[in-house]
């Protein structure tokens, strides 16, 4: 292929400079920017496609299905799901995983009502609309966890309808973890036998398996399916994620799809074959010990950020086992300089591996300086 013309080259160079610049100021989104996939560059020369179920043969053989199955096996192990029961695939990101989970719940319980908290990621509203499933939002506590009493009362009223519960395992803004064991307890108390729990564990799904005292998570805690992002904690230049569920459930859905002449059990048709390769490569390079160290350091930097804010009297806080540090919305000047996502009166930084103590210092200093300027 010819070299790009000077204009195209200049455009690409400018874009790269812009991204380099932005990367230095990215503290508010849960995307790990510390990765190196240069070893995989040669694979960009091929048309790869993971169309179909990774656990079934595909006529399109330029795929990474075998590697994808290894990735699923590793996530299944992290989520305490027995290998022989594990099914899943590498998704385009957390939203597809959440859609798959709710779709699965809806297929198993067509008359079910989806319950989710006010702090659930906005994309769930899109999913519920697409799937046209009945749904009730439950209010959250101030800390972002679901209000269990409101959940209990609302389920009690509708207890003849199956429950499809969407749990936040690390909510978007506050990093809150809904207590799945407690939700299971509520279902037991109310004698609700037809229930399905899907967990949105986009970020914390890769944190909790590596901490000493995790909040309840995993299939042994009551998950029926879980969505975990790949481009968040693991880090990946292409958005991706993993959805995991139980093989028995998928068999039921697969049969229903077979009925209309399609054997595919995944939501999309063509699927990315590079992202499974990248996730697999990340696991190979870091290993479980590497992830454990990475998570420990992220949590240490998060605590450091809380302490730095505290030094200046800024009321910052974080949940146990969370790398999301919540603080009052900073002045507009700070948000122009740094990439952060405010919501109402609060904002957060997320101490992903590329967020260093030096970046935290600079960020906190900017917040304090601009606040002083405002006050003056």
């Amino acid at each position: 292929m010819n070299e790009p013309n000077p204009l195209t080259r200049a455009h690409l160079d400018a874009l790269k400079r812009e991204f380099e610049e932005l990367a230095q100021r990215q503290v508010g989104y849960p995307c790990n920017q510390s990765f190196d996939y240069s070893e995989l560059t040669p694979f960009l020369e091929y048309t790869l496609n993971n169309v179909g179920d990774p656990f079934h043969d595909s006529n399109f053989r330029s795929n990474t299905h075998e590697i994808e199955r290894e990735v699923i096996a590793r996530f299944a192990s992290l989520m305490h799901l027995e290998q022989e029961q594990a099914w899943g695939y590498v998704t385009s990101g957390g939203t597809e995983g959440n859609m798959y989970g709710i779709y699965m719940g809806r297929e198993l319980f067509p008359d079910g009502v989806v319950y989710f908290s006010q702090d659930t990621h906005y994309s769930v509203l899109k999913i519920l609309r697409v799937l046209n499933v009945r749904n009730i939002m439950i209010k959250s506590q101030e800390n972002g966890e679901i209000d269990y009493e409101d959940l209990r009362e609302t389920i009690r009223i509708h207890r003849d309808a199956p429950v499809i519960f969407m749990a936040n395992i690390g909510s978007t803004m506050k990093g809150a973890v809904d207590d799945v064991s407690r939700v299971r307890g509520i279902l037991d108390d109310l004698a609700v036998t037809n229930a399905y729990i899907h967990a949105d564990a986009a970020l914390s799904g890769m944190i909790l398996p590596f901490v000493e005292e995790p909040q309840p998570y995993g299939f042994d805690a009551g998950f029926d399916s879980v969505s975990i992002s790949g481009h968040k904690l693991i880090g990946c230049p292409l958005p991706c994620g993993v959805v995991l569920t139980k093989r028995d459930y998928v068999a039921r859905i697969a049969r229903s799809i077979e009925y209309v002449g399609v054997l595919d059990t995944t939501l999309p048709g063509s699927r990315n074959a590079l992202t499974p390769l990248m996730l697999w490569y990340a696991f190979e390079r870091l290993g479980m010990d590497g992830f454990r160290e990475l998570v420990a350091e992220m949590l240490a930097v998060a605590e450091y950020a809380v302490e730095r804010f505290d030094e200046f009297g800024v009321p910052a806080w974080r949940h146990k086992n969370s790398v999301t540090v919540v603080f009052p919305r900073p002045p507009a000047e700070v948000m122009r300089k740094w990439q952060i996502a405010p919501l109402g009166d609060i904002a957060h930084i997320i101490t992903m591996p590329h967020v260093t103590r030096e970046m935290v210092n600079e960020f906190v200093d900017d917040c304090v300086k601009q606040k002083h300027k405002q006050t003056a």
Partner: protein
Amino acid sequence: MNRIIITVRDEVGVIADISKALADENINIEALNTEVAGEKGVVILTTNESDRALRVLMNAGFRAITDEAMIIRLRDEPGALAKVAEKFKIAGVNIQSMHILNRHAGYANVALTADDEAKAKALLEGEDVL
């Protein structure tokens, strides 16, 4: 006609800002209702061009959504939503969706859709429907 729901801070001139943003684009406001609780509130409006109005408001920095739902204002207290749900359950009307739009100063604004809109409206008589 789709309604547009905007969550706003209760600041002087916010209605004027919304009106100006729409007027500058020659969009007419046909109805406007405001509900303020403490520092925050909800502005509900209908215009002659709902889709374009939504874009204009979003571009002007407002947090605006379209919804054909009924909006009710409830005391933000334990079981308040459940009580509404119970009323529907007893009447045999299925709630299709129930979403909290915002909570502030002891109140919650809630968007609700049901499988029988007429019955739902009747059930909500006596509630603070916006």
